[in-house]
């Protein structure tokens, strides 16, 4: 019965590395176990075989980029120590919002229509959630101006911005771009095997 206690974590993240599921005490049989060959970050030469646990049959059709985003979100939530009830993983569940998020989104529908959707929303108390974005460096991410514009559009809607990135170079770049703004940049260098991280 104790193994069921971890299910809300898996439901919130949608998928998580198998080692993280073991940390939460979720047995492999509680979901669907798959493995993917994933680059630690976009453009990395080496690929890692990452075993992961999915919440339901929906996860069988997910591509490697989405899987990496989802796994990074799950590891980031673990690093930040966020409870599943305070986290809406929009990268994985496009429409998944808990009642609190639903009410907030309904009252800010007009503003949210013009705002890019972050990968996750983190409720830390207060009037709005913080936007959590996974940055793997894919597509060059529009450059510094594009990044600034994106964060600017989140400014009036979200209560804060957190970047999760697996690349050290990318983390340094993000920290430099947002040096004058209140943006947290968290580096997760070995996300496929541990929830180690540091704030840049």
């Amino acid at each position, binding site marked *: 019965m104790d193994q*069921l206690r971890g299910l809300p974590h898996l*439901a919130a993240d949608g998928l998580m590395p198998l080692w993280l599921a073991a940390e939460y005490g979720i047995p492999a049989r509680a979901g669907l176990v798959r493995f993917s060959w994933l680059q630690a970050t976009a453009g990395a030469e080496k690929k890692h075989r990452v075993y992961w646990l999915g919440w*339901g049959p929906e996860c069988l059709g997910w591509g490697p980029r989405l899987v990496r985003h989802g796994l990074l979100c799950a590891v980031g939530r673990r690093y930040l120590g966020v409870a599943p009830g305070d986290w809406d993983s929009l990268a994985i569940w496009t429409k998944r919002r*808990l009642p609190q998020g639903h*009410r907030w989104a309904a009252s800010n529908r007009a503003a949210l229509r013009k705002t890019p959707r972050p990968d996750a929303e983190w409720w830390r108390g207060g009037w709005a959630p913080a936007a959590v974005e996974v940055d793997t460096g894919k597509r060059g991410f529009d450059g510094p101006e594009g990044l600034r514009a994106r964060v600017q559009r989140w400014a009036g809607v979200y209560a804060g911005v957190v970047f999760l990135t697996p690349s050290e170079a990318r983390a340094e770049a993000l920290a430099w771009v947002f040096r004058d703004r209140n943006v947290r940049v968290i580096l997760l260098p070995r996300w496929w095997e541990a929830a180690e991280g540091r704030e840049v």
Partner: protein
Amino acid sequence: MLQAGYLTSADVARRMGVEGGTVRHYRELLERMGFPFSQDQESGAYLWTPELVEVARVAHSMAKAAKGVSFEDALRLILYAGDLARNAQEGVSVVTLLRGALQLPQRLEDAAVDLREAASFVRSLETDLRRRIQAVASEARGELVAAARQVQEVAQEARSALREAGSGGWIGPAAIGVLALGVALPILAKGGLAALGPYLVMLGAGAFLGWWAGRG
């Protein structure tokens, strides 16, 4: 909400790969079969515990795998299998029940013997009790008779004492006797016995009246 260990209906739908309407139907069936659901106070959304999610998932898989088995049938099967498994774990089975039933007559006979012994014990207890009560009653009766006798004696004594007190005792007759001698001697000296006759008659009548009055 999820912090408290609950999941939403959308989570359940994703877990089973079914539409939201199917999950609603499953929830209604589960509720009808006695599975409790709580609701989010503000939004009214139904909250699933992980255990409920797993029961629904297993029932859904069974219904999907076996032809002709509905979700409701699968739930009943799960409950039945759960009962069987629990009984088997506790060592309760048809064989042990049958063995118990076969031993029942012997147990009943033992119980009857016990009851008979208890009845005879109660009977002996009753006899003993009656004997004791009789002994106590006879003792009490003797004491009562003695006490009544004592009371009678005391009353007799009191009555005689009262009579004596009422009649004045021997002083009165003695005084009367002295007075009679004082009257009779001069008369005897003057006229002889003949003159004394009327006095003697009067004396006898007085004595009779005194006796008669003192008798009651």
